[in-house]
């Protein structure tokens, strides 16, 4: 999340809100009355403006944030697991979640924050090689495959699994902390796992 986000008061005029968004180059602005969160205003709430510049200028100047904001917003607490927050964003179709601690706004979590988490989880920010695997969707299969990698002395930067291409399979994407991925792929293949990675004959797995 972004701690201590920029906020706006409900009686601020829309022009001030829009310029705060543009200045900060972000898209969501929590609306706070005193200590209390009363809503969220987004670029999308502010931008559908009258066509003529004169009308637009008037509208921006006179309308208040409270007239265009979304009230009754979904919030999270700082100790919420990130996947729970992601689900809330998806289920409610919103772009951000204000983070409240004891009813006080302490931060804001946006989809861009989740993207950063995803990059970290997938291990792409650390030097590593990408290896894909298809495993039987059965207890112990992933463990056996990872033992093969561990026995080579290769450190794993990330392991992500998802339902595989066929029923009863699991797809796995590894990021192995090695420049020399071929022995990892061969060892996995020798142990009976369908593995693809760089340095292999045949086109790379997508």
């Amino acid at each position: 999340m972004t701690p201590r986000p920029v906020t706006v008061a409900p009686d601020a005029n829309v022009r001030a809100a829009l310029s705060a968004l543009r200045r900060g180059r972000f898209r969501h602005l929590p609306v706070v009355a005193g200590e209390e969160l009363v809503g969220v205003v987004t670029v999308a709430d502010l931008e559908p403006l009258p066509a003529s510049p004169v009308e637009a200028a008037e509208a921006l100047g006179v309308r208040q944030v409270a007239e265009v904001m979304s009230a009754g917003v979904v919030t999270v607490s700082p100790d919420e697991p990130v996947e729970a927050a992601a689900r809330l964003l998806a289920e409610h179709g919103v772009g951000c979640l204000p983070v409240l601690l004891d009813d006080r706004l302490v931060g804001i979590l946006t989809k861009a924050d989740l993207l950063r988490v995803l990059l970290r989880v997938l291990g792409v920010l650390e030097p590593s090689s990408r290896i894909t695997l298809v495993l039987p969707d059965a207890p112990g299969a992933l463990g056996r495959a990872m033992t093969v990698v561990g026995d080579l002395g290769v450190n794993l930067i990330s392991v992500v699994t998802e339902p595989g291409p066929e029923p009863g399979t699991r797809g796995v994407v590894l990021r192995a902390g090695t420049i020399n991925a071929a022995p990892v792929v061969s060892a996995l293949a020798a142990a009976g796992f369908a593995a693809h990675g760089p340095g292999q004959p045949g086109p790379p797995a997508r």
Partner: protein
Amino acid sequence: MAADGRLAAYDFGAGQPFQAGRLEAGLSLLRAAGVLGDDDLLAFEPAVDADLELVHDRDYLEAIGRFSGEPAAMAAGTREQVEAVRFGLVGDNRPFPGMDGAARLVAGATAAAVDAVATAAVAHAFVPVGGLHHAQRRRASGFCLVNDVAVAVARCTRARPWRVLYVDLDAHHGDGVQAAFYDDPRVCTVSLHETGRYLFPGSGEVHELGRPPGVGRSVNLPLEPWTGDDGFLAAFDAVVEPLAAALGPDLLVTQNGCDGHVRDPLSDLTLTTRGFRELAKRLHRLAHRHCLGRWVATGGGGYDLDRVLPRAWALLWSEMSGRRLPSKLPAAWLAADPARAAGPAATSWLDPRPRRARRRAGAPRAGAAGAPAAGESPAARESPNARTVRAVRRLVLPLAVRAAYPGSPGPVPADGSRRGAHRLPAWEPRAARHDAPRGPLVLRDRCPASLVRRLDVDPGIHAFVRDPEREREVLARIAEEPAGDMVVAHTHDGVVVGYVAIIDPEPGSRFARVPGVFEVGAVEVAGGWRRGGVGSALLRFAVDAEPFRDLVLVASGLAWHWDLEESGLTAMAYRRLLLRVLETAGFEELATDEPEVAYDPANLFAARVGDRVPPERRAAFTERLERATSSSSSE
């Protein structure tokens, strides 16, 4: 050459790709071929802390020192193991006895090579074990403990206000060197590598461009598996030579990793020694053309020690030293190990030409994404490599340099039309007078290359190329383009103080081959002549020629090419200034989602539609604007 037996200590152990035998395997062939003698070896000492700390953190260096003793079996979960993992000293980079000294030797060798070249003791130097380009500030990575290249370059730029061009040809992205100079506009790092989508280390995307003030000086060309020699060389030619012309480097440092070879186990670029020889020739020429010959090459990766690495090093060293290799590989060297003669053309320096690429280099997969639909823009039919190269050129090359070095022609369109077929109509050259505050100027259009070469260039024109001689050559090359128009403002003494270049839109770009659409390739006014309305007067004069009433002109401005240092303006202020200049010449700003323009809010796109442009041509232009918009938003 900076290499001796001590460097064999850089050894992750037998069975590891980076092992002690590497150096000897390579150098044995150079000696057998009679191109390397003991007199060639430079003296060097292990790098000292003060040098290493230019690039690495002290606690990381201390950890390397601590792990240099006899390897104790590291129990899982112990403090030692946790620390080793934190600094990347596991797996590929597992500690070995004496690694501290070995790493310092490599760094010392590269530093000595740079010193020798910088002080003109030698023109070129080669460090076969150097090029440990993955090492990070506080992390070992990909067999690289210390970043010898970054250390040597940092030492050099600390002492001298030089510009350095670093060209990394290893199959893997040169991430550590890039990171060390990510914000430095004087150290330009260029890495050609296999895409990091699968391959280690995973970085090296086109949009890793650097951080201010070094934006545009980190350059990445991620290439597809099976790129092959031709594709690799095409990418090199389209970017590295013009970049060198734009930068005007004082020193060339290269990482000539040969792990992109078709036999190398670590990558899929499918290069051959033919490609390596061509690359060495090009680097050699580039060093002499742009860097007073100063060139330090490092060996980098390459893990086929029998068939590839010795040949690759020999070809590179032969090019650098000017010593001819014998026509065949020495028989005694080949006989010493049967693996050295494995495969076809065993006695030849060059690999056989690939009979047929299994798949055309980086060609789109037929069927995978479906054949391109009829009516799609030419850009959609480009190979991924061609698209990458085009994007990189637009992002990092100033327009004038791009126009002067058009690179390889784009894909031939279905209608068979070629670049150059689309050209400006002829008109009688014009001249006009402009009274600038500093003195009267002559404005003239349709300047041929011969005239440009007879004029001088004001030293204040230097945003792209610092040397007026070279700047003139860039302008002359633009003037040679059959499709374009070179318009200059010069003093009565024949000194060019400003120019406008009108060019054919680059092949594959959004407006390429759209009938009647041309591009303002560059507008530049010399430092001392700005704020006198010269730019506006020049542009107004340029577009005032009769034929432009029937044509559309587009202009885009990318903020990181602007001379903000000299002008003392912010990017947004410069943008306003540029837009005002364009508007006085009848241009109008247009919204565009062209990724290169959208990348920075200060970037600018504008167009001028001539008053006699027929409706159908106007429609074709707006359709291209709109079609491009809809197709890129669906990507």
